């Protein structure tokens, strides 16, 4: 007598949705980036001109990539935090701390590699602190990270004793202004970090778990996820990213400016993530799209610089473009797009 059996194996998972290249180019972020770049080109015909000079590429487009790199790196960490329905306001201050740490150490005769590791370690520590506040003490992320946003800049000033600590260490300067394969070092770092982070979250279950925590932290916990451990990892990673950005901006000006390094960049990073389509309500996220968001912001900044507008218009132009991008991404306009004949779903 055989009992009826039920086949408990799951049905074959659906094949990943085919993503033709055309789909990528119809994303609002890509359209926005291309549009901003074209406007820049119209304002300044030499915008796309890239020349080879002193063993590296040289041109406005390279500037966009290079200047966009610090915010792009912040955005990589910020994307994951926001995907867990959190936010990290402290990344700008952590940049200042990291730069201050590295600069102060090398000017006191500590070898540069140690100083770099110490700076990264400080960033990790800052991120871990945020994570502890959010998980163990269960403080809302916006408040928990506000603590370090306000106090962090003071910490950085304590480290530099209020001075702009200048240095001439070749390794630190290389991180900020060096080049590899003709591309500026910050761009290389950002690309490597973006690819590594994307692979880690998408080739493992980590991305899915982060999204699960973001959609519903309690449900995720009841489903057996170690939500707190995940949150700790995510905030620590954001601190690590901020430390890298801090090293870059310090190396760029050959000095640690505790008052101004990374000032308001947390807001640019959040904006980049939002432009990249990650919702502040948590859940689905995309790291490459956030990096694209950072590039859109920087394309505007660079465009304004070379356009010759008077500086009073900077913020007006920027906000107008951002409003347009966000409206294009809104659910209503997405529905409108779908109704257009020939538009892909």
């Amino acid at each position, binding site marked *: 007598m055989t009992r009826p059996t039920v086949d408990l194996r799951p049905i074959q998972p659906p094949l990943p949705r085919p993503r033709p290249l055309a789909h990528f180019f119809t994303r609002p972020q890509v359209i926005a980036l291309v549009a901003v770049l074209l406007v820049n080109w119209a304002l*300044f015909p*030499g915008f796309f001109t890239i020349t080879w*000079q*002193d063993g590296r590429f*040289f*041109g*406005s487009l390279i*500037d966009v990539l290079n*200047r966009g790199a610090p915010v792009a790196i912040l955005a990589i960490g910020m994307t994951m935090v926001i995907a867990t329905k959190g936010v990290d306001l402290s990344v700008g201050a952590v940049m200042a701390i990291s730069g201050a740490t590295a600069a102060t150490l090398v000017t006191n005769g500590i070898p540069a590699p140690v100083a770099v590791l110490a700076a990264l370690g400080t960033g990790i520590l800052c991120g871990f602190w945020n994570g502890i506040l959010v998980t163990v003490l269960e403080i809302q992320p916006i408040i928990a990270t506000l603590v370090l946003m306000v106090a962090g800049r003071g910490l950085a*000033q304590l480290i530099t*004793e*209020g*001075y*702009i600590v*200048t240095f001439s260490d070749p390794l630190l300067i290389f991180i900020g*202004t060096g080049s590899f394969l003709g591309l500026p070092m910050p761009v290389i770092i950002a690309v490597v970090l973006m690819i590594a982070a994307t692979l880690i979250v998408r080739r493992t279950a980590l991305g899915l778990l982060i999204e699960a925590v973001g959609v519903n932290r309690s449900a995720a916990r009841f489903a057996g996820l170690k939500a707190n451990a995940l949150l700790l990892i995510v905030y620590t990673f954001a601190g690590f990213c901020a430390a890298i950005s801090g090293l870059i*901006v310090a190396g*760029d*000006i*050959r*000095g640690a*400016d505790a*008052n*101004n*390094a990374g*000032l308001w960049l947390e807001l640019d990073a959040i904006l980049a993530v939002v432009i990249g389509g990650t919702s502040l309500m948590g859940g689905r996220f995309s790291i490459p799209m956030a990096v694209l968001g950072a590039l859109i912001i920087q394309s505007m*900044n*660079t465009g*304004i*610089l*070379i356009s*010759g507008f*008077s*500086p*009073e218009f*900077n913020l007006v132009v920027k906000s107008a473009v951002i409003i347009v991008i966000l409206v294009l991404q809104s659910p209503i306009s997405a529905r409108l797009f779908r109704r257009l004949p020939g538009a892909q779903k």
Partner: protein
Amino acid sequence: MNVIKTLALGAGLASLLLSAAYAEGLQGKVIGFSQIGSESGWRAAETSVTKAEAEARGIDLKFADAQQKQENQIKAIRGFIAQGVDAILVAPVVATGWEEVLTEAKEADIPVVLLDRGIEGPEDLYLTSVASDQVKEGRVAGEWLVANVGDKQCNVVELQGTVGSSPAINRKQGFEEALAGKANLTITRSQTGDFTRSKGKEVMEGFIKAEDGGKNICAVYAHNDDMAVGAIQAIKDAGLKPGSDILVVSIDAVPDIFAAMVAGEANATVELTPNMAGPAFDALQAYWDAGTAPEKFIITESKLYTPADDPQGEYDRRKGLGY
């Protein structure tokens, strides 16, 4: 520790220079100083120079750091009044809201001297104010450029301070006044660098790209030295020589611009002196000794420094002041 050492060094240096001239006069006077905070290197230098000046004159200086908050300054001033100090120095963080507390000081017969910034309100609330003329600073920088460029065609790019801030508005105005009527000198581009090194560098990079790789730029005028330091790096990155291919003129006279001058990368800077307290103490002394009320607005000198003015010496002299 370093801060204390450098402060002590700066104080010692200054007192050596000054002790001969001011042996008596203000000896033993108690003067309260309500400082805004230490938001910039210049502010830190002002604090350390004020302490050095007071020490050189034998003044007992009561120092209060307001950490950018007016209520802290008002509290500090009330504290000074309660302690019965002889005079009060204030670097006001904002221009409004001082009537009440300054009236209290006036009723207590304590003279008040404003440093660095002015206030709105009746002028009889304070004895005098010591400040720099920001329009003049811009004019001095512009006049240097006019004198040094000659009749050659010269396109100038400008790195402005924070949009809407008074130094940015006034330094721009003064510079434009100096260039007025000179057909060969034109400001071709002007953008804000927010008074910071990194923005100064980024804006200059953009200007260089937009002006044919920098070939169409003959000079850069920065509203402060930090932006000039950033611009110098951008010029170097573009394969040009700052100081000769592109002239660099800026304002403030912080140590790092003198280091750039030593390297031949900066051409001129106009000093915003951190010594606002010296003239204030002089005015107080004259007021107490002779009973003469000083003029209401004491304007500090806007001195021009070029590589001919011993930049290495200036660098060493300033490095310890807390910039």
